[in-house]
């Protein structure tokens, strides 16, 4: 304990330098936190995908529609336990900048398929009972200050109603929460029957099916089996595991995501290098004093410990400050909800961050400390700064 006083004394002797170093380490780890959140957001929910779910879409591209009647045939395939249909509605709330996904679904099929959307039982019942009913996730509800009972008007540039009108109205009957931290709660779901009856064209068609399979190990085999079912029909399908589908979607953003995260990593390590150098420098400057300590009889191990304690303390305070700041910032939700529906730091990344903090403290302290340890007392005392 008495040595802590010595460590604190060393840190305090150039207060400004200590403070600046601390702050730059904090900045580095703040960036690290943002990097992790951004990476997770760009991965587009791949880590949230269900292993026992497949996605079936039109083979040509997702904008081609497939008949909802395919559901019966898919359901008949052995190994398939449930099928839920979804359609891209492209709804615009007031202004295109307010983008969030809006999707017509069949409520009970849908909620059974996606247990990650948690809806109170009373709201579920209300949805099943209300034709014009819709539910929305917490993120979007908070973004526009919606509450249950509100009437939500959406305009769809794709789906016009009978009579050429493109304005649709929905009654908000429920707000769902995400079961896990990374669950995307930006989407708006409403009833397929209301949608199908109202649309002017394309009746009886949907954009994609989500399929649940009994055994995840059979997923690839069943995906091929589903496509086989519709081969040579007017609407050939492409079926893949939900994870692959999400990943394919994320890949469409392409190299940009990789490049931005690459740049961020480079930034992180540059700052670490620069501030690490400063810490090491401040120890090197005191070689002479370390010599004095040795002359006083301080054992080598203790000197190593003192120097490491100092560098770890700086790295620790700075790093935790930065990580804490990043956590606080991401807790406020996504800065660009239309483009990145989820924005959070996955827990395993926080562990990596803490490990990096410790690593930084050890790495910056160890070289000058070992040098100091090896130094003969007489030589250290002769040295100037």
């Amino acid at each position, binding site marked *: 304990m008495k040595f802590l006083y010595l460590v604190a004394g060393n840190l305090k002797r150039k207060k400004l330098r200590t403070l600046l170093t601390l702050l730059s380490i904090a900045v580095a780890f703040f960036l690290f936190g943002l990097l992790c959140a951004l990476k997770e957001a760009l991965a587009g929910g791949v880590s949230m995908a269900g292993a026992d779910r497949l996605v079936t879409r039109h083979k040509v591209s997702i*904008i081609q529609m497939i008949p909802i009647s395919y559901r019966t045939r898919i359901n008949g395939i052995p190994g398939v336990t449930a099928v839920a249909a979804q359609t891209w509605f492209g709804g615009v709330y007031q202004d295109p900048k307010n983008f969030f996904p809006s999707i017509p679904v069949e409520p009970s099929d849908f909620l059974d398929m996606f247990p990650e959307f948690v809806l109170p039982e009373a709201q579920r019942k209300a949805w099943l009972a209300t034709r014009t009913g819709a539910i929305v996730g917490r993120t979007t509800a908070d973004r526009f200050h919606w509450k249950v009972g509100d009437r939500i008007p959406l305009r769809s*540039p794709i789906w016009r109603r009978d009579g050429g009108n493109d304005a649709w109205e929905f009654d908000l009957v429920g707000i769902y929460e995400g079961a896990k931290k990374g669950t995307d709660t930006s989407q708006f779901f409403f009833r397929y029957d209301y949608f199908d009856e109202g649309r002017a064209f394309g009746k009886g068609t949907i954009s994609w099916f989500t399929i649940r399979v009994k055994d995840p190990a059979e997923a690839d085999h069943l995906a091929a089996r589903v496509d086989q079912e519709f081969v040579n029909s007017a609407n050939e399908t492409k079926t893949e595991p939900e994870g692959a589908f999400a990943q394919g979607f994320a890949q469409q953003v392409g190299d940009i995501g990789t490049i931005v995260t690459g740049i961020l990593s480079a930034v992180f390590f540059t*700052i670490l290098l620069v501030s690490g150098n400063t810490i090491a420098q401040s120890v090197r400057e005191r070689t002479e004093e370390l010599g004095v300590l040795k002359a006083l009889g301080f054992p080598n191990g203790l000197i190593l410990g003192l120097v490491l304690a100092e560098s770890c303390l700086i790295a620790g305070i700075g790093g935790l400050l930065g990580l804490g700041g990043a956590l606080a910032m991401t807790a406020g939700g996504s800065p*660009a909800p239309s483009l990145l529906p989820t924005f959070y730091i996955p827990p395993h990344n926080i562990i990596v961050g803490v490990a990096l903090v410790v690593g930084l403290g050890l790495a910056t302290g160890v070289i000058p400390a070992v040098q100091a340890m090896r130094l003969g007392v007489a030589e250290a005392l002769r040295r100037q700064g």
Partner: protein
Amino acid sequence: MLNWFIQVFAITAANLRTLPQRRGAAVAAAVGIAGVVTVLVGVLSIAEGFKRAMTVSGAQDVALVLRSGSDSEMTSGLTRDDTRTIADAPGLARNAEGPLASPELFVIINLPKRSTGTDANIPLRGVSPAAYAVRGNVKIVEGRTFTAGRNEVVVGAGAARQFAGLDLGKTFRVGQNEWAIVGIFTADGGVAESEIWADAAVLQPAYHRGDTYQAVYAKLNTPDAFRQFSDGLTSNPRLSTKVIRQADYYAEQSTSVTSFIKGLGVVIAGLMALGALFGALNTMYSSVSARTREIATLRALGFGSGPVVVSVLLESLVLALVGGAIGAVLAYVAFDGFTTSTINWQTFSQVAFAFRVSPQLLIRAIVWAAFIGIFGGLFPAIHAARIPIAAALRAT
């Protein structure tokens, strides 16, 4: 006054000459600032490149006619009668073959990216014979154009580069149809280069579109004729259309991606700049404290405090500019012309583009570097000027 400049020059020269003795700290500061510049230029060059691809092809004298209420070609729909009425509208340019109006179809197909092998949404456009004359910048650089009525396509140079299987002479299959690639075209690096073009009349039955189109591209007599053209269409009771200049249409489509990347770039570079500023401050403080005695000696010899301040600032600025220049060169080499593709959410389809490090971007980054240098040097400079002479001379 002259004396003042001589003093500044003398101290600054001495400072810079002794820089190699403080190599570690100086390099650390310069590296930090080089990093800021690289990051800023690197990230913003993505936004610049994307924006350029989206806007270079947007001519002021080309108008796009969509169904009213639609926000892109993708969601629009027009009948053949509509397109005929549009082709007769006032203000439209004509050539020997008739009015310069091209009714077009816009669909999306899935083909794998060359880089990852994963499916990407690629725009397949059905065009009419007037399409080339309307755009004016589309050139077939290899092969020939498609023959009307046949399952042939020409592929944009960007699409050919990014997506697998789009090579001249090859064929690809979409649904029940086989398409032969007979030519490669360029469009000044614009967004059209990301597309595949086919005869609209062939694409209609292949996509069960009957006799409908999605948009009409129309060349105007002059850019000013837009008003006349637009009024003529919107006041026509038989039509329900929306008329936009091509330039505005593409500029609007590029804003969401561009402003997102720009925002991201400025935030990252701003944080990095903060880190670099702390680094520069550290360097300059230690540089000043290492020379406490020298500075005191100069002051004792009669040098003013002004020159001392300016010289420290200059030293910091030089370090920052050297760092900035290194960063700028690095960013230019690494990012300029790098080709990639990303998704344009408005049309749900891929846009191939090249990163672009513009001179303005480089200047902006160097200005950032200069600011970091000045702020990093300011407080240490004031500190240096305030050193009590007698005490500093006695110090060891």
